[in-house]
């Protein structure tokens, strides 16, 4: 049993003229204690919808989410069940996620109220601030007195005050400058390791993910198309989409080589292509890809992909679908 266990998750939104848009289509994902799992993909792939459903901010239309073994209910007006308060979220933009009119000490203490209500001693404001590398003396200041990187540390401190067992962070470093990105990414790693927490790290940046996450899952148009240890996914991507994504990253090596582009646009999620959702853009498309939708299968030990091309190249591995592992 994983700390956070997502099975067959479906998230649908109402589209134009009564259509339903399937933002997340049958996703399985696990996060263990002490583990960083990255969910990567381009805009509109459903990664944020998955993250919000994982903390109960939106109601899934099907599937199950279990946290610490208990089913997780969507957030209601009356607040959330006590057990779920150990699951916290950190958002992308630390300029809008912190109330500008409140002192950061109060903001963090409010995060701690969650722990007190659950009958636990919250982490003190000073301890939270020091844990994220800020001085305890900053508690009297307001958010505008801090840089973007410092604000994101404050948002993390607020999540820590609740003594969470798992954090879902949606693009927590994308809004920051490169020098601050590295520092906040390393901070998240040290928190996860020291406090034995789980972290679901949602990002569009594969290179950052490669350097901090244990496991990487790649999403395309609502589906998780590949998953495995970050090093393996980066070194030897199985799914053609993952390959295209990695090849598209421009490298700062001074060589002046253009990254490879992936022709075509992401299709409208309200009308996904028949068969494999990636087939209209896939450089290795086969006839079967246009007709049937590939299922995720274990192609190598501890690695899964949903791709006919990859499964032809990697003859069936006689293991059950493994989504639940520590790298």
């Amino acid at each position: 049993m994983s700390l956070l266990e997502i099975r067959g998750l479906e998230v649908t939104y109402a589209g134009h003229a009564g259509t339903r848009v399937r933002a997340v289509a049958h996703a399985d994902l696990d996060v263990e204690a002490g583990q960083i799992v990255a969910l990567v993909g381009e805009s509109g792939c459903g990664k944020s919808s998955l993250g919000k459903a994982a903390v109960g901010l939106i109601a899934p239309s099907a599937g199950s989410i279990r946290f610490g073994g208990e089913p997780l209910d969507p957030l209601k007006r009356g607040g959330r069940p006590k057990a779920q308060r150990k699951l916290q979220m950190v958002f992308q933009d630390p300029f809008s996620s912190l109330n500008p009119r409140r002192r950061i000490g109060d903001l963090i203490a409010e995060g701690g109220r969650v722990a007190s209500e659950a009958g636990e001693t919250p982490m003190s404001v000073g301890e939270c601030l020091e844990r994220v590398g800020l001085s305890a003396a900053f508690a009297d200041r307001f958010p505008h007195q801090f840089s973007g990187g410092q604000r994101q540390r404050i948002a993390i401190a607020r999540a820590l005050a609740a003594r969470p067992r798992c954090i879902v962070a949606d693009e927590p470093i994308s809004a920051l400058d490169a020098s601050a990105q590295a520092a906040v990414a390393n901070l998240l790693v040290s928190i996860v390791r020291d406090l034995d927490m789980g972290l679901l790290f949602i990002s569009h940046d594969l290179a950052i993910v490669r350097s901090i996450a244990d496991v990487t899952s790649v999403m395309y148009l609502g589906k998780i198309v590949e998953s495995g240890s970050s090093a393996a996914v980066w070194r030897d991507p199985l799914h053609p989409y993952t390959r295209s994504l990695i090849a598209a990253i421009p490298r700062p090596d001074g060589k002046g080589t253009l990254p490879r582009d992936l022709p075509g646009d992401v299709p409208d999620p309200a009308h996904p292509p028949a068969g494999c959702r990636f087939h209209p853009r896939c450089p290795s498309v086969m006839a079967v890809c246009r007709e049937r939708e590939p299922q995720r299968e274990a192609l190598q030990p501890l690695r899964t992909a949903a791709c006919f091309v990859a499964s032809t190249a990697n003859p069936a591995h006689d293991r059950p679908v493994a989504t639940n592992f520590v790298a």
Partner: protein
Amino acid sequence: MSEAPLVSIENLTISLPGNNGGRLFPVRDVSLSIGAGEIVGLAGESGSGKTITALSLLGLLPPGGRMSGHIRFGGQDLLTLRPREMADVRGRDIAMVFQDPMTALHPMLSIEKQLTEHLRHHRGIDARAARTRAIELLELVRIPDAARALKRYPHQFSGGMRQRIAIAIALCCEPQLLIADEPTTALDVTVQAGILRLLQQLRGELGLSVLLITHDMGVMSALSDRVVIMYAGRVVETGTRTDVLQHPRHPYTHSLLGALPHEQGDDMLLQPMRGTPPSIGALPPGCPFHPRCDWAEGRCRDIEPGLRVVEADRGIACVVDPLVGVPA
């Protein structure tokens, strides 16, 4: 460079009104040049002064902004032009594309209207000729089915296609210099790769010079011939793409590259830089980078180093110069 460059910014200083009647200096003593058909990458973190440097080329500064120095372009000094004359240069000889193509395009006007309006204003051609030219421009930026695309509106295009349209509008008057301010930052990587390819093709086909402003060293490496690194309103390092990215010589450039994910054996490393960039209203004395620099010496607190030429086509603003000959 033996030929005179297309644009040459010399000792540009920009000041803006600050609080309490004081003035802030977001750009100080910046010099850079762009040759014909050359792509120059201008990089730095937010607040380093890269965007305002670019806006100065268009004569567009925030209210109360003042400039000193010279911006030489096509035999004239842009800083001496009257507003009317500057308006002619802007959009005709020097054009700009912005980060967010959704806000750069008018949401209520068809693509045809937005392209032809520009053409008719600057070129004074009739509607029919403008339409023909608009189709050519969309084809130039590789928009499929250009004639039909003209009838559509910005929201009917994806982000990448919208950025191509914004580039087409910028190219209407065959500018000599295109300023591209974070042109791919709002786009997904696979789409970004397509826009980078397009910019390189346009340089080849039109002999266009490009000033590419970016915070992404990968983007800069893919496209630029030469790079200029800014920190706290000053140029700290300049040189060819290969020299600067493979053998950074200013400590700031070195730290900036170290903060990016980079492979070392089997591991990917991230080495964060200490501290945060200073605000332009409260610069530390001496070298503005010294509080974050691993090599800072006593004299770095006293002297603000100017950019000095250390080898052919290579300049750094550092008195210690600790990285000379050190492999990246």
